[in-house]
């Protein structure tokens, strides 16, 4: 009987110098896992999207999303290990998204991650999904220098975040109503462009004229870094309704292009304002809407025009949408800092950043 029970503390660190982090993400409709070596080298990255399953409902259905995660997480994690050519016992720590997101979906990932870490006697690291999105930039541009400013735009969030150092975030502005991606989704549905809305609007907008319609840009009170997208959304709806009453046919491509432009304009103006207010020299783009071409282009152009040289970091599209690699990246820095989660870790659907 040489088998011995190891300590059940979550803090055991292997003697080996290589740090292998398994990142698990199940907060919404993507089941994803990735293995990251020493914070920079992505050894594997598996993403299964449920978009096909949710399409017929016109949006993500929480209970169905949870059921899908439950059925697929094992295969996704196993593939991530296989692709990295690693065994469970090679892992250094497990990083998992514990919020914000859909509680039932989060709990699948959190339960699995906890049991894996506990069975391996290795640390568990709990990651805020929003922090994950921001850390996607470190995978792509590891030489970033603090302080940083992040514009996080996705289906659920629109945040301007002051990022002082690892794990040190301050939200400077956020949306007061719809998230940018949410507004895109809703208008895409109304225009009959389908789900998910952001990419569909972007596609349609390519054929349209962005100056065809003049939709409002809500800047809110002077100096505010908050966002509001409900005004522009209802303006589009009103335009559609009055046209319908007059029996007019509107050009959908023009509508999509003008609406997208209105959203991009607000995001760009507020971001420039935040850069001016904070004096930060590096902007990180993050979140699903960061994959939007118009937004990338507009930011790149506008930043080039600014008096001070501002560096723009944009992750590749695959790292913008929800993924396990970004969770592993954020997990790496928390692991280094010794910031481990307790076995009581729970899903926190409304988790906020600092």
């Amino acid at each position, binding site marked *: 009987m040489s*088998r011995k029970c190891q300590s059940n503390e979550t803090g055991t660190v292997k003697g080996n110098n290589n740090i292998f982090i398994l990142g698990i993400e199940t907060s919404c409709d993507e089941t994803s896992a990735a293995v990251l070596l020493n914070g920079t080298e992505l050894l594997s990255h598996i993403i299964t999207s449920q978009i096909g399953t949710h399409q017929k409902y016109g949006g993500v259905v929480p*209970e*169905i999303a949870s059921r899908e995660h439950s059925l697929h997480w094992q295969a996704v994690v196993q593939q991530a290990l296989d692709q990295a050519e690693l065994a469970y016992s090679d892992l250094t720590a497990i990083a998992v998204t514990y919020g914000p997101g859909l509680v*039932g979906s989060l709990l699948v990932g959190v339960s699995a991650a*906890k*049991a894996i870490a506990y069975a391996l006697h290795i640390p568990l690291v709990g990651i805020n999904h929003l922090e994950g999105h921001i850390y996607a930039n470190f995978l792509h541009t590891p030489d970033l220098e603090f302080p940083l400013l992040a514009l996080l735009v996705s289906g659920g969030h629109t945040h301007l975040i002051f990022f002082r150092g690892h794990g040190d975030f301050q939200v400077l502005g956020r949306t007061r109503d719809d998230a940018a991606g949410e507004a895109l989704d809703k208008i895409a549905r109304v225009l009959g462009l389908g789900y998910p809305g952001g990419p569909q609007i972007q596609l349609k907008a390519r054929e349209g004229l962005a100056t065809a319609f003049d939709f409002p840009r809500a800047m809110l009170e002077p100096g505010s870094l908050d966002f509001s997208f409900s005004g522009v959304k209802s303006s589009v709806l009103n335009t559609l309704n009055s046209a319908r009453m007059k029996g007019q046919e509107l050009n959908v491509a023009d509508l999509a292009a003008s609406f997208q432009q209105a959203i991009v304009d607000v995001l760009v103006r507020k971001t420039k304002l935040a850069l001016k207010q904070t004096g930060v020299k590096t902007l990180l783009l993050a979140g699903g809407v960061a994959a939007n071409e118009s937004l990338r282009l507009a930011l790149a152009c506008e930043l080039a025009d600014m008096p001070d040289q501002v560096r723009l970091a944009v992750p590749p599209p695959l790292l913008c949408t929800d993924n396990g690699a970004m969770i592993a990246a954020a997990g790496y820095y928390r692991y280094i800092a010794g910031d481990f989660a307790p*076995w*009581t870790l729970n899903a926190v659907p409304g988790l906020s950043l600092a």
Partner: protein
Amino acid sequence: KYLCIDTTTKVTALALAEDDHLVAEGFLHTIRNHSERLIPMLDQLLGAAAWCLNDLDLIGVVRGPGSFTGIRIGIATAQAFALVLKIPLLGVLSLEALAWAGYGRNGDIVPILDARKNEWYTARYSWNLSEEKAVCLDQPQAAKPDQWLEKLAALDRPVWFAGDAVAAAREKIRQILGDKACLLPEFESLPRGAYAARTVWEKWLEKEQGEMVVPYYIRLSEAEVTWAKRRLEREAAADGR
């Protein structure tokens, strides 16, 4: 040696067992949720029993019916253990496990679990003691309490009730079944690690190998039901045209 997990109701139930012997049992029925207490409770049990996870040869999990979220927490945890430890996994039903609450009783055993929307997850069993087996007489289903109780009353034999829906339904059960209603005390009637362990053990003796375990919800999700209904309506409308 095996571990059994049941998180399908508000009770977090764990058991460590060896063959048909119960070695350690965990039972928590508090306001805290499964995610917070499952691993800490397991850690305590393993420590107290002087076992470690590496000693295990099998993982058993209750895969429903019950709380959708609870089902998934239990299964994800059990699946992860089985994957990492490379040992077989077996899934059993919550209702099947609760049949052990009425072990050896004369009459039928009817587990009832709160399924919300004024329904129960239920089934009907009877003990065949010579084979140590609970025979299933009515398959697991989601049933309206009144209709289900009327049906049981018509059988005209003693019915033993177990499960988390018993406490709130005592009056109603007595009213409809009269002296045929047999109510177990709550501590015997709620899901227990011991019940799950016995169910898993019997299944292991029968199968002698692990299996893919998937959730057993009985019900479709709300959205699927609505969508199916709409499609039927559309089809009906199309037919009527």
